[in-house]
């Protein structure tokens, strides 16, 4: 992870500990008793039938949703990361994630880099687009992309700030074989440098995890 002013690499040893997590919406209970721990280099696969709460769990891990019970702790070294700052550590790929249709891909990435306080040159953004297979689409408006390309763009957006924690919700949905290869490459790269969490029902992806969490059991 680079330091905020775009300087040299700063090792980010982020640890995640989840204890007895439960979530319910009003009277509808989704899941309970979820616990796991992840260290850098480890991957968790979350699986379960539709509606079992996979996406909700991912949202909670992003710091966007509060759990009904239980705790989530992100630690950098010994320091506990406060709730506000969790989103800086986390990159998300999710079907709900939509980028700005009227802006081009490069404009979108430029915007998200700027609001995160990152200094990224256009060349670096172009490299990122190449990494996800969108190298010639930089000047296209995001609204004109196909579903497969949108998914690739989501990866570019998630990796923009080189997050220590990558959360993927249905990562290979809508991707062709080349796209799936790209996704697998990203996952492998993430595992070598940080934490990976994948929510999926895809049997092949189940093999990727050091730990497997089944919801709705």
């Amino acid at each position: 992870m680079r330091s905020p002013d775009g300087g040299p690499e700063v090792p980010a040893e982020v640890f995640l500990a989840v204890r007895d997590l439960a979530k319910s919406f009003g009277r509808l209970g989704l899941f309970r008793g979820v616990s796991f721990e992840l260290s850098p280099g480890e991957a968790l696969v979350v699986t379960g039938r539709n509606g079992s709460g996979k996406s909700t769990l991912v949202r909670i891990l992003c710091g966007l949703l509060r759990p009904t019970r239980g705790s989530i702790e992100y630690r950098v070294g010994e320091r506990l990361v406060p709730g506000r700052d969790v989103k800086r550590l986390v990159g998300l790929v999710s079907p709900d994630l939509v980028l700005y249709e009227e802006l081009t891909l490069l404009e979108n990435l430029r915007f998200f880099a700027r609001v995160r306080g990152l200094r990224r040159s256009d060349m670096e953004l172009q490299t990122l687009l190449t990494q996800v297979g969108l190298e010639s689409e930089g000047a296209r408006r995001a609204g004109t992309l196909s579903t497969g390309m949108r998914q690739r763009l989501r990866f570019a957006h998630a990796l923009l700030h080189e997050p220590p924690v990558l959360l993927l919700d249905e990562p290979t949905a809508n991707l062709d074989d080349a796209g799936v290869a790209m996704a697998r490459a990203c996952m492998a790269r993430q595992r070598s440098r940080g934490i990976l969490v994948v929510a999926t029902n895809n049997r092949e992806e189940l093999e990727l995890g050091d730990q497997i969490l089944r919801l709705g059991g």
Partner: protein
Amino acid sequence: MAEAGAVFLKDLQQELRNRYALNAMALFAITTLVVVGFAVGSQALPASVVAALLWVVLLFTAVASLSRVFLREEETGTALALRLAVEPEHVYLGKLLFNVVLLGAMALVVAPLFLAVMQARVGNPGLLALVLLLGCIGLAAASTIVAAIIARAAARGALFGGLAFPLLLPVLIAATGGTTRALEGAPLGAAWAELRLLLSFGVVMITASLLLFEHVWNE
């Protein structure tokens, strides 16, 4: 602060590319001008009435368009990405700036047109400009936080006017008073109470909104 600027520029870029709000506001303003013009005809109206009508037009223009800034993010689904990337204060400041600029630009066009249609004489243009500026800031400040609130509720657009109007009454009262003085040609000092009120309203509303915004924005 640069982050807030980025949010502002992003919204500006979006608006310039599809112009929904600008079009809606322009259409609304022109239509209202024509209607009022017809209704009034060639009567000479007292300054207080002209002032009141002007601010009614601006108020309705504000209510017609200032909620877009948050509604669009929620409706298109881009709010998720924004929540993940930006601190709440920067979101608020960026959106506030956008609304101020949007409303201010509208006022810059509508006010002279309106006064021309009314055949009103402007005694103190400097004072009028100042009242318009502070009034628009006040309208935008209250409207922005209300827009943020209703974007997270169900009925959304329908709620905006009802929730915003009571909060905007003080701006309306002070701005109308100040505009009346300006039209009558009174010196700056005569509208001191109104100007002071508009300024303090804006400051307090923005400060309170900054402090409260994260409770609206975060889940």
